[in-house]
């Protein structure tokens, strides 16, 4: 028996927590139905394309697991399926953490360590990553060892990120971590919206649609989520991944790194 089996039998109790299902109304995006498509492929009842199309609807935010009273690790199970279907790559080797400081700025997509050090008035270490700390490697071979490597590299220091993919990996590794906007402005008074990772389960919309698999595999849904995100929440976001997606959709948005840089430069 596997997580996928259990989820297939579930009355779709995590549906309210899934930002793609809630934001698009598309039944196939409900996590238990993605599990069902994967089960059908594993049983030989459906071809691999059906499972691939289902997996494209998952942005890997982890909210289904958070909402599950049985704590089923569906994100890991779907990660395994992605690897088995050739949709995911193993995590790249981790770079070395550079510099000193109790906080480690994990720089994915945009650099911000220097600006953060200036704003906080203390040293901040820098950790560069080209693959969001190997986010796509979830559920693949060596995943547990990869997470152990992250724990060792941080050595008890706090990771700071503005990237949703990185945040998910840090949460899986069980290390201390914080969103950049919370570090810069504890209490969230600057009005930035948290990305889907770590956001409360309440509310219909927890994702802007910026998952790479969603953008590539279900562009209409990615566009629909982006439009709703901006309509209901405005143009400020915490997550640079969200910002990147929303800009690609034609929206003018401001993310946590933009805010940090403005503050560091005294604007």
């Amino acid at each position, binding site marked *: *028996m596997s997580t996928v089996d259990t989820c297939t*039998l579930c*009355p779709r*109790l995590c*549906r*309210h927590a899934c930002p793609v299902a809630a934001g698009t109304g*598309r*039944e196939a995006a409900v996590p238990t139905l993605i599990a069902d498509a994967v089960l059908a492929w594993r049983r030989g*009842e459906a071809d691999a394309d059906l499972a691939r199309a289902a997996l494209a609807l998952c942005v890997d935010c982890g909210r289904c697991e958070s909402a599950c009273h049985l704590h089923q690790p569906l994100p890991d199970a779907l990660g395994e399926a992605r690897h088995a279907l050739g949709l995911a790559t193993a995590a790249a080797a981790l770079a070395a953490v550079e510099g000193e400081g109790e906080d480690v700025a994990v720089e994915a997509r945009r650099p911000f360590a220097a600006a953060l050090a200036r704003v906080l008035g203390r040293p901040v270490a820098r950790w560069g990553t080209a693959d969001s700390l190997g986010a796509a490697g979830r559920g693949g071979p060596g995943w547990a060892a990869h997470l152990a490597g992250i724990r060792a590299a941080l050595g008890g220091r706090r990771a700071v990120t503005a990237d949703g993919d990185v945040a998910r990996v840090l949460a899986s590794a069980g290390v201390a971590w914080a969103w950049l906007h919370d570090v810069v402005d504890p209490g969230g008074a600057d009005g930035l919206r948290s990305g889907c990772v770590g956001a409360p389960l309440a509310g*219909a919309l927890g994702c802007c649609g910026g998952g790479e698999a969603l953008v590539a595999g279900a562009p209409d849904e990615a566009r629909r989520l982006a439009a709703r995100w901006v309509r209901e929440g405005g143009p400020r976001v915490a997550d640079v991944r969200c910002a990147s997606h929303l800009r690609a959709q034609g929206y003018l948005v401001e993310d946590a790194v933009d805010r940090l840089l403005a503050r560091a430069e005294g604007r």
Partner: protein
Amino acid sequence: MRTVDQVPQSTSPLDRRAAARDLWPGGTLDRWLGAPLPSPDRVVWPEDEDDVLAAVRAAQAERAPVIVVGAGSGVCGGARAEPGAWIVDVKRFDRIGRVDPATWIVEVGAGVNGQHLEDELARQGFTCGHSPSSIGCSTVGGWVAARGAGQLSNKYGVFEDIVLGVDAVAPGVGAFTAGLPGARSFARRPDAELDLLVGSEGTLAVITRVRLRVRPLPAKRWLRGYRFDDVPTALDAMRTLMQGELWPAALRLYDPVDTWIGGRTKPKHGAKGPPAWWKRWLAEIDRLPAVRRRTVALPLALPGVLQGLADRLASGCLLIVGWEGAADVVEAASSAGHTLLTQRGTDLGAEPGERWWASRHAVSYKLMPVFERGGFADTMEIAGRWSRLPAIYDAVRAAVRPHALVMAHMSHSYPEGGCIYFSFAGKGDKATYDAVWQAAQDAVLREGGTVTHHHGVGTLKAPWATAEAGPAVRAWRALRAELDPAGVLGPGRLFRDASPPQAIPAPFADPAPVSDGLARAPIAEATRVSGRLWPWEALPLPARHARSPWQTGAVEVHGTLDGAPCALGRGPRSAAGPDLRGHLLAEGQGVEVAVAVAAPGPRWTGRAVVPHPWAAARAILRADLRPAVLGVVDGALHVGFRGPAAAAFGELASRVVPLVPCDGVELPLASGPLVPCADDDPRAVGATSEHVLRREEP
């Protein structure tokens, strides 16, 4: 004119597969056993009423069955696809409006997820009070379509008490409004049709938007557990609470087997259990697929033995009771209720109640392990008058016992009766599954109960719902002929095409005993029955938006239609499909009705002379009080309460309006067509929490 090609839709295998089945456990069992899924032709996601109309008219032209789906959480097969069908998925009707602070009404899209609705209402400081265990996986439109009931229905009402008006689309007439209108100008249908649309399960129209009554978030919540020796004693205590007009929000009785399996009368921590090494060993063994697939199937192959063992080991039942709302009202009601309950039950303290509250939406998680281990689990919720509930309980247990393990809880109560919610677990094969349902539904009808309470009918219960409604099904057929002349909406759901003569069992045909809180009389005399619970001027009642959720009218209706005898209202809530009692009242010959009557006991009445008495009446209703008497005589407001907390409620009402105690009066509540009016309108004749009301002028 929009065409269906302009409506968002998909014919991809992924979307058709995702729409194939709802949450009917029989379908889950099929899926688990590897049976092929029913495959619809296309899935349509309308975003407004024009989209819906384009879709249903195109389906009509192609004679394609239309299955309307929200979250697909129905457990009776109503939202299950069929080959060739078009799925109309309404989840893109997902807007939640602002609560109108003047009326406490909100407009909501039919596709809004229940949990999202409550989250947003809470953000605005309100709740609609509808809290089913499926709240996270069901939609508002589904609650209307299947006449849902939440775990706090004793206070807030079942969903037809909460919904005040709907917008809908039907291929025969286009977009329309029934009940309280909303922001959009659609054609108006008669108010009485709202009672047919609620519970129609997608067979009459596609519901797109609803208007709901909401209440401020409760200021206080009070929860407690009590132990009773047996089910009949506990049921009697529940009846006393409801007929004492104390209106607890939660009132949940677990029978001995359910109490035992749930461990609900024992402390969760500190009790001695098996040693840790034994538990670890069992867990290891359970991981082996060959073992795991049989761990439930093997014992369930001998259900009679298992049931006998469970019955011997189980003793005592747990009753969870909870009040919530305005703090002083909760205090007065819970104090009187606690006194009543401890006369025959044992107080277990707050912990069982708080434990239930914390896990109240988690119950469905228990089903998966049963399927995984080679069994099936399903539930059946039925209702009956208080005097019939023990017999129905015994009859269903006896009928199911040869096939499956059965336990029950009772979680929706009314002054006249309540709901029994049976849970079955059996060996995971379809023959056993079908035998359980046949035996259980037959037993309910035979003992004078209603075959469903809040899960709807779907395809699963359609034969029994048709037998229960009998000749009155003609009202549904007549409306369907107008709204959906080609019959494409939900074919095979709800009612069967051919109706057998209605079987009216003796327990239902006999006049109800007084303990049921019912009195039967010809319709012309029914409003003169002494001590009526809600003394209406006349029957039928005004539209839903012109009365309070707890104010009932004719509980049972007996008469003839086209020369055939017909009796409706076997339970306090006759929820096998739409409420057809209004049709029998209006169209039947020789009609007799059973109305609810008030229990003897304390009374309190006060009067006040205030500038706008009906606005003052509304203020009392908004203070979370439920007066039995609410009327204006010679410009003076009269307010009366009954039951063990009558004096306390009277004192609380006096803080809202300066009431002076006076002699008791029985004032009729205004009937007939009523419409909202200004607080100071001299023509005002009534009030709800939402509006002051006057008679509609021709």
